């Protein structure tokens, strides 16, 4: 980069043109809505990791017996944990929705030589997501 800036200081001649190069700011993703959404989508992977970690800790507490599990659920009810989980949940939603919307782009499904419309590729993902969510909700809520 220093070489480049030194080049930029050099005089312009017809055979050694002095090109202007702009260096990208560290905050390039803040200026534009599409870039911001992209960075938020990338950051949403942290939420996925958060929930994976949480599930592993939940399993560990479960294995250690009722006392340990009770302490774990108490921790989950603290305001900080509720706030953290709400934020993580929003990011997970962003993650899932953007992922499903991008699926048709990465997987062009062809039937009889014709490309299937994008929404028909994305829709089964949503249907499956809702079905699995509904099943999990039923599983959790039926005893309570």
């Amino acid at each position, binding site marked *: 980069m220093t070489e480049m800036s030194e080049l*930029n200081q050099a005089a*312009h001649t017809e055979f050694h*043109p*002095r*090109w*202007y*190069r702009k260096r*990208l700011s560290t905050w*390039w*993703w803040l200026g*534009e809505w*599409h*870039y911001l959404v*992209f960075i938020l989508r*990338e950051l949403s992977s942290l939420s996925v990791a958060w929930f994976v970690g949480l599930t592993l800790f939940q399993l560990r507490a479960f294995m250690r017996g009722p006392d340990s599990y009770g302490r774990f659920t108490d921790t989950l009810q603290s305001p900080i944990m509720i706030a953290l989980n709400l934020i993580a949940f929003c990011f997970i939603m962003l993650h899932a929705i953007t992922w499903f919307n*991008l699926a048709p*782009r*990465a*997987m*062009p499904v062809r039937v009889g*030589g*014709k*490309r299937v419309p994008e929404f028909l590729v994305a829709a089964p993902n949503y249907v499956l997501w809702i079905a699995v969510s509904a099943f999990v909700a039923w599983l959790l809520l039926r005893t309570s």
Partner: protein
Amino acid sequence: MADKIVLEIARYAPERDDKPSFQSFEVPLRKEWVVLDALNYIKDKVDGTLTYRWSCRMGICGSCGMMVNGEPKLTCATFLTSYGNNATVRVEPLRYFPVIRDLVTALSDFLVKLQKVKPWLIHPNQPPLSAGEFLQTPEQLDLYKQFSMCINCTLCYAACPVVGLDQEFVGPAALALAQRYNLDNRDQGSAERLATLAHPDGIWGCTFVGECTRVCPKHVDPAGAIQQYKLTAALDWVKSFILPRGHKDAPQETAHD
């Protein structure tokens, strides 16, 4: 409708300026005028030193790409009236490219990358002409046709933050064109292209921002082409892992018959 519109145009004279600055021009606002018409008006009537590229003014030569109000656009297809009355339209050279003068960017880097992916038919075992024409079915054409619509306008490079962050990244248009030839059943060059494409500066440099596809004036969908090739390259790697020897000898077919 107002009868005037103000264009703020980035000016850069390499023999004089250290960095570009903006100059405002007031031009007539006519219903049928595109940004390029306004630039031509300024060049003809106001300031003949204004420098920019253009040729066909009908969206096929790909030379008049510029940033219009921060968006990569073909200026021959961007109507002034779409920016509303009494608006200021800001015209800058395409982002992430070195600027030579005013609105003209240096394309040499892009052309080197384009050549690197070998965007032509590679056909070592070509049958003689006497064998007749190479027939292609509509389905075979349909596999690559979308990616063949690229006009090399480089709007996708100006939209892609990876291009801005990593100068070595091959970039959307070149990768989409490589895929256009990989998917053509007359082509046998996918193995030759693999080393350039399945590389951290090739498809694996792409983080799927998707902006290239959004700004493409010819609906080429470079982001789609790159993601689809990622799948091909990953499967290829799995195959080479399972069948190291058999795979090495086999031609790498992506979309043949």
